[in-house]
């Protein structure tokens, strides 16, 4: 893998560009499971789920870059991958205590929504929970 072909990866969110560098392999999470891209993949647009995004680097000694992504989509084109998402956080940037709080808050929302049979609130709570769990999972804080 020492001379593996690389391609450019950019992760764009409304709050700025989170990542802009080369990579040898990009793995994203879609609703139907994981999807991997390597250099010279054919042009593709894929919708993303709330999930983990992993980037492998040409330097095999280097750790993989892991990112918690909230939805959005990825576009692969001309050896360039662009991920456009509502929000994306590198593993190092995740605020673990905030995610913990969000998790317990979402669990309360879901419990309350089930009590009063509010489907809107329930689905909102579930999205919040998925987001919090994703952050915790990517940061390695989920037992």
């Amino acid at each position, binding site marked *: 893998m020492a001379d593996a072909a690389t391609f450019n990866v950019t992760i*764009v969110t409304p709050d700025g560009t989170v990542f802009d560098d080369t990579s040898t392999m990009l793995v994203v999470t879609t609703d139907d499971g994981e999807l991997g891209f390597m250099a010279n993949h054919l042009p593709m*647009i894929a919708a993303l789920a709330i999930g983990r995004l992993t980037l492998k680097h040409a330097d095999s000694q280097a750790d993989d870059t892991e990112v918690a992504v909230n939805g959005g*989509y990825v576009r692969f084109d001309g050896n360039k991958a662009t991920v456009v998402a*509502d929000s994306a956080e590198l593993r190092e940037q995740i605020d673990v205590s905030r995610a913990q709080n969000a998790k317990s808050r979402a669990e309360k929302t879901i419990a309350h929504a089930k009590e009063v049979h509010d489907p809107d609130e329930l689905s909102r709570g579930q999205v919040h929970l998925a987001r919090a769990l994703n952050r915790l999972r990517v940061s390695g804080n989920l037992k």
Partner: protein
Amino acid sequence: MPASLAAVKRKLESTRSTRQITTAMQMVSTAKLNQVQHHTKTYQAYESQVRAILASLVKSHIAQLREQDEDSKIDERISSLFAQREVKKVGVLVITSDRGLVGSYNSNVIKATMDMMAKHHLNADNTVFLTIGKNGSEFFKKRGMNVVYEYTGISDVPSYTEVRGIVRKAVKLYRDGVYDQLYVSYSHYVNRIISHEKSELFLPISPNSLEEETSEKVTSEIESEYELEPDLTKMISVLVPQYANSLVYGAILDAKTSEHASSANAMRSASDNASDIISTLQLQYNRARQAAITTEITEITGGMTAEDN
């Protein structure tokens, strides 16, 4: 006139300290303006990506629909953001500031909103309001308007995560049929001196505006054919709300930029005014002091002359 001398001096000092404060506030506003401008630049990169993709997908989607004699069902959520419904209720999102000291910023936005309402024959019965910022919220409540959602305490450089709540709310209320059109009233930042107040129709999204506004650079980038995962309908149903959200967020950022510029301007003219007053007062003070000295000298010389005689 010793009494007036002291009075002028006091006034001079208080004006000086006011100027100090307004100058500081001007600098703070300018710094915030720079911050928010930097943020807007990164947001625009995101927005143009979303719009370009959506435009190209919608184009091929429409072509596909035509091939299938238009009988295929479009995802409800897409059509609901595009389709023109019969207008029974209109939603207006008004973006104002929480604080004062921003010159005519708030009154201009409110005036533009009222003009828009008059133009489209909107009144308290067929309009619901969503407000960002205390000023707008108080104004419309006082006039007995139906304010369904208000958001105050927005930060100086709002992040997407922060305003996601109101952005989603605005789009969701539209989708749920609470209103059939969404106007956004805000102040569009042109440059540091000029802002234009706008009342624009945001929802339903018109497919034409989508194509017109797409910059050519990004479009040419995405001419090639794509594999879609999972499929076109699903992609569009993901992208349309994302685009709608990004539009509303863009308006909020634009309004904030304009607010900071307006605040910086107001503070600059306040400082200029203070400087004018200070120079007038300084002249008065010097005159009064000179007059006092002259009186004293006259008295002393008067006294001496009396003694000599």
